[in-house]
């Protein structure tokens, strides 16, 4: 049967637009939201454009943005980290308790904090990748362990943070806040190298279909482990930043970051089921979320309405994403899990 016509239509590359939407749809959505929010914000608070105002905004969102980036790494690899907030608390307590004033001590504590964050992440990763535990439940358990450790290090808030360290991270260079520089550094020095290299590809592949990844000979377990170590690193940097900002250690400081990091990731179009999304989206999601929280105060929204509004907002965004899915007109695509 030579020369037979091809039985199926040629499958070309998806259009650039479609591809962009696939990757950056969430990010674009957040970008628009961010723009609108900023307009409202600057209208309400014209002084926000001063260098103090800008660094206030940057400082208010950096920690969440970093934690959301860490969470995104885990999500891309098909996992989930409920303990990420507790890691933030743990590293914060560690840093604020041990930090002295000399440059050497600050440097050692910073290094130690990063290692501690990665260690905590590694424990999660080992439990999940090698201990074969479900991510949800095992990070739920380590949440208690890390939170308890933080509370043991610092039963009450306090500690000492070098002034130089605090101003170095929370101040600003002209109009450019150091927080933005920290974020850029994390992206350029950590995220980019990982996600332009093979490890990043493996992370996405494992998140997409871990059975295929195993059968394709990918080192599934080390990759899983790596996602948690990376997220631990991001959590540690966020914690160091919070330490500088709050100049103290507090075992409950990270508590709100777990849900908010998940929310930021979802806002930014990262799939909770793994393998899909971009860090740009998560970062914008983080900024949008913290900006909304800020804006609610600025607009003088009555205190008790804030939770309600925050919740409704989340639900609306989730529902908007859900309505997209409703447009799928094929039950098998809507529900299909085994996509091979």
């Amino acid at each position, binding site marked *: 049967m030579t020369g037979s016509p091809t039985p199926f239509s040629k499958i070309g590359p998806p259009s650039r637009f479609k591809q962009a939407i696939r990757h950056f749809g969430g990010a674009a959505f957040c970008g628009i939201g961010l723009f609108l929010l900023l307009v409202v914000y600057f209208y309400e608070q014209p002084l926000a454009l001063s260098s103090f105002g800008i660094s206030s905004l940057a400082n208010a969102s950096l920690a969440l943005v970093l934690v959301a980036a860490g969470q995104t790494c885990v999500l891309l690899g098909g996992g989930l980290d409920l303990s990420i907030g507790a890691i933030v608390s743990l590293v914060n307590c560690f840093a604020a308790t041990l930090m002295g004033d000399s440059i050497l001590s600050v440097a050692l504590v910073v290094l130690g904090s990063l290692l501690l964050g990665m260690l905590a992440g590694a424990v999660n990763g080992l439990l999940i990748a090698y201990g074969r*535990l*479900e991510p949800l*439940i095992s990070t739920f*358990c380590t949440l208690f362990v890390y939170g308890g450790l933080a509370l043991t290090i610092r039963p009450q808030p306090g500690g000492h943070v070098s002034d130089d360290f605090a101003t170095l991270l929370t101040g600003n260079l002209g109009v450019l806040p150091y927080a933005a520089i920290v974020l850029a550094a994390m992206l350029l020095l950590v995220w980019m190298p990982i996600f332009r290299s093979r490890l990043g590809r493996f992370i996405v592949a494992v998140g997409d279909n871990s059975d295929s990844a195993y059968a394709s000979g990918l080192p599934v377990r080390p990759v899983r482990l790596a996602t948690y170590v990376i997220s631990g690193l991001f959590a540690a940097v966020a914690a160091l930043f919070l330490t500088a900002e709050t100049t103290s250690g507090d075992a409950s400081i990270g508590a709100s970051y777990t849900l908010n990091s998940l929310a930021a990731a979802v806002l930014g179009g990262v799939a909770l089921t793994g393998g899909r999304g971009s860090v740009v989206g998560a970062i914008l999601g983080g900024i949008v979320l913290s900006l909304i929280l800020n804006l609610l105060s600025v607009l003088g929204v009555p205190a008790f309405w804030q*939770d*309600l509004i925050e919740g409704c907002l989340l639900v609306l965004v989730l*529902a908007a994403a859900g309505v997209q899915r409703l447009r799928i007109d094929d039950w098998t695509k809507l529900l299909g899990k085994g996509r091979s």
Partner: protein
Amino acid sequence: MSDAAHPIKMPTRLKDRLTRRPGSNLSWVILAVVFALSVAINPAFLTWGTIRLQLVQAALIGIVAIGETLAILIGHIDLSIPWTITLSGILSADVYAAHPSAWVPFAVVIAVGVSVGLVNAFGIYLLRVHSLIWTLSVNLILQGLTLVYTNATASAPSVPPVARTLALDNWGGFPVASLVWAACAVAVILALRALPFGRHVYAVGSNELAALMSGVPTGRTYVVVYVISGLCAAFVGLMISGYASQAYLGMGDSYLLPPVAAVVIGGTRLSGGSGGYAGTISGSLSVILLQAMLVSLNISEGLRQIIFGVILLGLVFLFTRQRK
């Protein structure tokens, strides 16, 4: 084909059970171990008074965990429980203060439970949002609603008498709470095993598309599961208000994750489709005993959390390791 080589064996049900479901059996072993440990640490755990007390606590977790078990069996989760509890507790006390008649608390429980369940099912089934984050968001909304409604002050001076009966009284030496729990447990175990609804739950949890294509009413299953979960939480809200003799803000805060822990210790897999409520019963008892044991050890809060986390991790390690 080749029937001779592989005859269809019909093993006894008992053997079946022992080989096929090590999880739920193991959870009773663990309960025994936890109990033995508690007694070793403090012999008072062997007294009927203490046991009765733990039974009441376990009943609260256990009833909430009915909904959680169902939600997890269909492959999802319900994290909107804490503020469903609080809202229902406060609302039932409030409405009862205005209209003191016996059925009022139950009407409130039903109204709260059904509405929360419907909202959850709407987002998770119709909009297909991940249940973890949807229910957490709903929880946040309920928190906001409660605060707005109460102006952040619980205002009713007392709770409905039936709440106190449910939580504090004894019948024939047994706490009413645990009798209610037992009745609910029997009902849910029966429903899961012998009603089509139960089969639907397992079918949806193990493969929703296949369930749809087998004619399972998947949407109805979601709705029923989440409405039951809402009802259980709302009912426990009423019970807790009776237990503390007042409804107060944050009364459900400690019910976010312990029910999940109870379900997991009970051998139900978080990925859905496998497990059951029998295991959750021992899971609830284990969680409560563990908490009480740590309280009686008189150690620092931080260390207590670490121990709770590590023990839970150990249990999870025993039960829920994924096969691959």
